[in-house]
């Protein structure tokens, strides 16, 4: 309620400020025929800015301090003999009763005289402080408004000032990206560092047993945190995914790029790209209920023992997910190979496939390798498919037909629904996250470098 009043008043104030600035500018320009530096709307905007900034700053400071002050005041309303008889829970209940009385909602049961008095006092205090806030905010706004309006003169470079404010705002927007990266690195590094105070980094990076205690089971036993089983699982699934995605994606891109009729391409390309837009949870469910059982039955039919949830299941479905990624990137890169190279090969009598294999692909190779690396980084960081379909068996083994676990699965398992970062059980998620971050970062940087380098080659 109060928020709406404040917001409404602020909007009215801003409109007024803009109008006043604009009208003064207009009066200047029409009255004595002087040339005014800036147009009316810049004066209006400038005055509005001068009004807005102090008010918002004041409201922010108020919002930061006022809950504490109100709490302190409410406590001070309680008689000392009541106060001494209360523990923390009792105090909170007592304060809530007084707040309910002050809001006019009332409380159940008998109202004690001191509660009644405190409630009335609190109500008065709340009203008073709200009015003070309103008056102070309005006062500041009006002060800013008048000061700004007084500055308006034909020579005031209002446009430049407004534009400077805009560019400050734009810089602030760009800074968000930096803050995000800083936030990621800082949170991963600090929490991972705390994890390494519990567990020796050597045991983490070279340990072959992953047997953590889950965060909900307490901190009695630290458990074993060997990364290797998770790493092999991650790499195995990524490798299977690439085995599916690379041939299919690359051949699809070559066919669409070189052979397909323009109309076919127009229809088929978006359909393949649909695969990229499907949420990964959908792939995970598909892997779990359709692909996994199918593979198991298929294995039974040919005498292989394939688990329904296995590295193979997760890898196959993840490969499908990555197909459009590889095919669009490869398509772009093939498009960039100059026509003259191809025409030269045709002129020498090469067939179309020979041209593609011996001229086009070698020319596009660095770019395509870059695309593969980006795809690998995607496969390594993928979570929902492996959470559902990889089977979560963090055991070091090389058989892709058996369940495995991955880094991302373990992050989810260790941290799900728990943010009490007190023991290695949950902190290990950050060490895993850091490993994942660094792995994908390296792959991405190398891939971007290769792709860029290659793109410049023909320019």
């Amino acid at each position, binding site marked *: 309620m109060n928020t709406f009043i404040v917001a409404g008043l602020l909007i009215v104030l801003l409109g007024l400020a803009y109008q006043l600035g604009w009208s003064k500018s207009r009066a200047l320009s029409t009255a004595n025929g002087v040339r005014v530096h800036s147009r009316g709307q810049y004066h209006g905007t400038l005055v509005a800015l001068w009004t807005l900034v102090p008010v918002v700053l004041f409201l922010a400071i108020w919002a930061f301090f006022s809950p504490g002050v109100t709490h302190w005041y409410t406590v001070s309303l309680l008689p000392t003999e009541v106060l001494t008889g209360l523990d923390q829970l009792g105090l909170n209940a007592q304060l809530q009763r007084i707040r309910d009385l002050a809001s006019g909602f009332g409380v159940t049961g008998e109202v004690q005289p001191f509660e009644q008095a405190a409630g009335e006092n609190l109500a008065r205090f709340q009203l008073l402080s709200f009015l003070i806030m309103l008056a102070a905010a309005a006062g500041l706004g009006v002060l800013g408004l008048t000061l700004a309006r007084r500055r308006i003169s034909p020579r005031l470079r209002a446009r430049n000032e407004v534009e400077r404010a805009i560019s400050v705002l734009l810089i602030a927007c760009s800074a968000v990206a930096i803050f995000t990266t800083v936030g990621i690195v800082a*949170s991963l590094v600090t929490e991972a560092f705390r994890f390494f105070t519990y567990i020796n980094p050597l045991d983490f990076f070279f340990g072959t047993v992953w047997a953590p205690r889950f965060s909900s089971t307490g901190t009695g036993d630290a458990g074993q945190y060997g990364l290797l089983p998770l790493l092999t699982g991650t790499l195995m699934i990524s490798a299977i995914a690439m085995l599916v995605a690379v041939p*299919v994606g690359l051949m699809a891109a070559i066919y669409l790029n070189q052979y397909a009729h323009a109309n076919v391409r127009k229809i088929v390309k978006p359909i393949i790209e649909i695969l990229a837009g499907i*949420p990964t949870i959908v792939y995970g469910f598909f892997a779990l209920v359709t692909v996994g059982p199918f593979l198991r039955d298929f294995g039974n039919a040919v005498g292989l023992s394939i688990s329904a949830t296995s590295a193979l299941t997760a890898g196959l479905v993840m490969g499908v997910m990555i197909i459009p990624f590889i095919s669009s990137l490869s398509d772009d890169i093939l498009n960039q190979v100059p026509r003259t190279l191809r025409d030269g090969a045709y002129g020498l*009598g090469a067939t179309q496939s020979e041209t593609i294999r011996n001229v086009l692909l070698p020319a596009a190779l660095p770019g395509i390798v870059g695309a593969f690396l980006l795809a690998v980084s995607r496969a390594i960081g993928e979570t929902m498919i492996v959470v559902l379909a990889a089977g979560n068996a963090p055991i070091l083994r090389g058989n892709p037909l058996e369940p495995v676990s991955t880094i991302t699965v373990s992050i989810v398992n260790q941290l799900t629904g728990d*943010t009490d970062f007190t023991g290695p059980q949950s902190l290990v998620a*950050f060490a895993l996250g850091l490993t994942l971050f660094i792995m994908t970062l390296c792959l991405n940087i190398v891939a971007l470098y290769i792709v860029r380098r290659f793109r410049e080659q023909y320019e």
Partner: protein
Amino acid sequence: MTDTTLASAAERRKLVRAGLARRHLGERLFRLFGIVAICLALGFVALLFTDVLRKGIPAFTQANLRLEVTFDPEVLNVDPAPVRAAGQSDADYRSQRLAWERQVAMLNWNTVIEAALRRAAPEGFEIDSRQLLTIPESDARHRVRQAFVENPGLLGQTVTIDVLGSANTDNWAKGNINRDLGDAQQQLSAPARALIDIFEENGTITQGFAWSLFTNVDSRSAPASAGLLGALMGTFWMMLIVIVLAVPLGVGSAIYLEEFAPKSRLTDLIEVNINNLAAVPSIVFGLLGAAVFINWFRLPLSAPLAGGLVLTLMTLPTIIIATRAALKGVSPALRQAALGMGASKTQMVFHHVLPVTFPSILTATIIGVAQAMGETAPLLLIGMNAFVASVPGTPLDQATALPVQIFLWQGNENRNFFEPRTSAAIMVLLAFMITLNAIAIFLRSRLEKRA
């Protein structure tokens, strides 16, 4: 001299001819591989969609029971509902009312439902009460009670109330269960199964559209009444936050980097940063959210606010990169013309360049938002997979999101019932995605024509 060249030319021709069949075969094979690859990719799309559709469509209908419920005063022995006295405080009235509702809740509603079920059953049908009550969903008594709480005047009357069939009833009525299995493997007892068949014949059980899928929140005790409303609202709040924050921040940032930024170390750093952020795995954003938003800033756990912020940071790079590409595509002539007419750089950007790129920016935004909508992993880490049985009214309330709800449902042990349910939820999610993408395509074609 000429002889040797002629000979070698003829020889060469022969050599080429000899290899021709092999080369043509290679050509055909290569082409075939291409077609196979395309067919595989298209086949995957087709398989995935038909699989989800085939599994999900049955879950959009649900077994409903139409019961003649008698509010028998002898069973429902309860005080009259409290009336607010003059001068009574809100708190007092509310506690009195709650006490009355508690009293109502203590009544034996199962007896009421049992009586209604027996009335619908044929005369003399043998079934004990426990078996009988497995037919309607366990929230049936809440529905009947709610009807009474809302209208205490119903006491002594008989009215028609629709309740849901239980998950097992639904499975049996739809034939999801093998009817030839022995008694030991059936969830429902033999009389209950027989009675369901009778009810289907006499019209007490009908298959209707599963409105509860959209009007109810998730439920643990009454799976047939579990719905998506809470998840939909959670997703709505998160997308609202993403749109309100990510679009202005992303577009602003792109404008700065593309139009104003001097070429310096700092802007280079920002640029590399953004490209890398776009490729950071989504789960790392979840870790960021857990550490920064939840652990340091103490934002409420499982709230759409925290989820929305995480998704905003994730979507930002997409929007920035797309907007920059759009800005880059604007012809220099437009900029020079604007500057030449005396516009300042800011005016040039905001009055001339930005309007031209509006369609591309809008499309990129919608696609970014659609991506954020399907994201699950980071939300798991900030507690949005908690069980929430209420509709979030504000972004600060506990909530879950559509993809997370899918994740929660796929893990339900009642597979016969929840596999179709999950597929149905997936269909809802995919419908949103397709709609958003269609809007993006439509807007782009529409606006680009005008521009």
